[in-house]
């Protein structure tokens, strides 16, 4: 399999933290079925730390692998640390993605942010809205 690196294939074939959390403290969903990628992230947050995380993804191999990698990167981290995770870091941790597949991984970063914003909203925690740009309605997964 030359399309994806061994790390991508490992995360795609054996996704970590896959599933849902019925007692999640926050849920974020990004993407659009029309575009072929939806990512949903569930967080359990204790004392400002991401104690547990699960994801569900409708999407291609790189979308599923990126979701899986992203959950590993934020588990056990503080909210601030999780918010600092970028799409670029996820892709690097995966050992890279083919250029035309990068856009499928953007959702990982967005899903983390969307879930954390949900946490802030649910708990009435004030936050800087400019750090959570809304995805443009109707626009498909953007190319990067």
């Amino acid at each position, binding site marked *: 399999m030359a399309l994806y690196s061994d790390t991508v294939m490992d995360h*795609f074939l054996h996704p970590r933290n896959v599933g849902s959390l019925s007692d999640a403290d926050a849920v974020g969903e990004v993407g659009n079925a029309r575009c072929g990628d939806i990512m949903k992230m569930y967080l359990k947050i204790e004392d400002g730390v991401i104690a547990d995380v699960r994801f569900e993804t*409708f999407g291609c191999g*790189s979308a599923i692998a990126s979701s899986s990698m992203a959950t590993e990167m934020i588990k056990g981290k503080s909210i601030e640390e999780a918010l600092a995770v970028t799409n670029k870091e996820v892709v690097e941790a995966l050992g890279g993605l083919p250029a035309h597949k990068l856009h499928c991984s953007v959702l990982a970063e967005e899903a983390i942010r969307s879930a954390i914003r949900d946490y802030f909203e649910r708990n009435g925690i004030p936050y800087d809205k400019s750090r959570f740009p809304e995805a443009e309605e109707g626009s*498909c997964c953007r190319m990067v």
Partner: protein
Amino acid sequence: MKRIYADNAATTRMSRRAIDAMLPYLDTAYANPSSLHSAGQEAAEALRRAREEVAACLGAEPKEIVFTSGGSEADNQAILSAAALGERKGKRHIVSTAIEHHAVLHTLKKLEKQGFSVTLLPPRENGVIPPEEVERAIREDTCLVSVMYANNEIGTVEPIREIGAVCRARGVLFHSDAVQAVGHLPVNVKEDGIDLLALSAHKFHGPKGAGVLYARAGVPLVSLIEGGAQERGKRAGTENIPAIVGMAAALREACEKREEVNARLLPLRDRLIEGLSRIPRSALNGDRTARLPSNVNFCFEGIEGESLLLLLDQKGICASSGSACTSGSLDPSHVLLAIGRPHEVAHGSLRLSIGEDFTEEDADYVIAAVSETVAYLRGISPVWQECLAGKRPFILP
């Protein structure tokens, strides 16, 4: 692990006969057919024989056969030639369909930029282009109708003979991209009323990079490649003799074995269709019967096609999909959208195209593997989970 190759619409394995036919021309019989010496004349003789064989398989005359680098080139040349002829007569309208291969669609786009107007007919839900619709779309200034013989994605076989008759009656040139049909269906250019036809060797167990443009005698062609006088001045460049000889051998074999092969494939195709139809919220794409004997194409709600393909590959199954992520574009297959599948569902498509070596056990293995993999992907799909929870409507029945 055994590999099950179910992607014959993408390309086929070369037949032993075709390889054996080619070998001497890669080895000892390497001369240029344009050379005067006896070695060259042996190559010219091979070229002549290949042309006769190909013509015979299509019901054409040898002089109506132009060898090309494949199906794409033949489609390009056919359409551009008809357009050039139309241009001279002040006819700048072309009728085609929304489900053509990009070799046709992109050529038409190019002509639109040059001032041609193009009507792309939408198919019925089963992928069929009704001949009445073709008839209705033809105008005074129509110079060409281009309708594919069989669709490469959903396998629908078009009513070519009826469309050919419409074109003949209206005096409009008729081109058919028969890349998926030749060698698999009884194509006969005269009986089908086809003026221009494209075929590709690698779709019927011949070599890649070889194809044919059939142009009925009297239909003038424009040359896409200028240079020497090969192919009667219609396609310059020293002929790819090994590939042409291999193509002719493969085509003759495919035509000889066609009925026997199809009789084997048909029940296997139908077994796959029945088995995969048992997957909940799945839908067959294309017509149930007006369909290539090799083609099976389904949409499965709630999943994405590329991840399905990758997992099937792990189980030894080679297939394809019309999802955006397999095409490198942002949109799923234009064919699935044209037959009315919403984007959400079109992303979850699977095409299986079986070949002669496919067995009943393979079919059962594929059915089990696809059912299992679709269930697994639905298990981790937020779309499917939300549908199950009633938060999102199901699209497929």
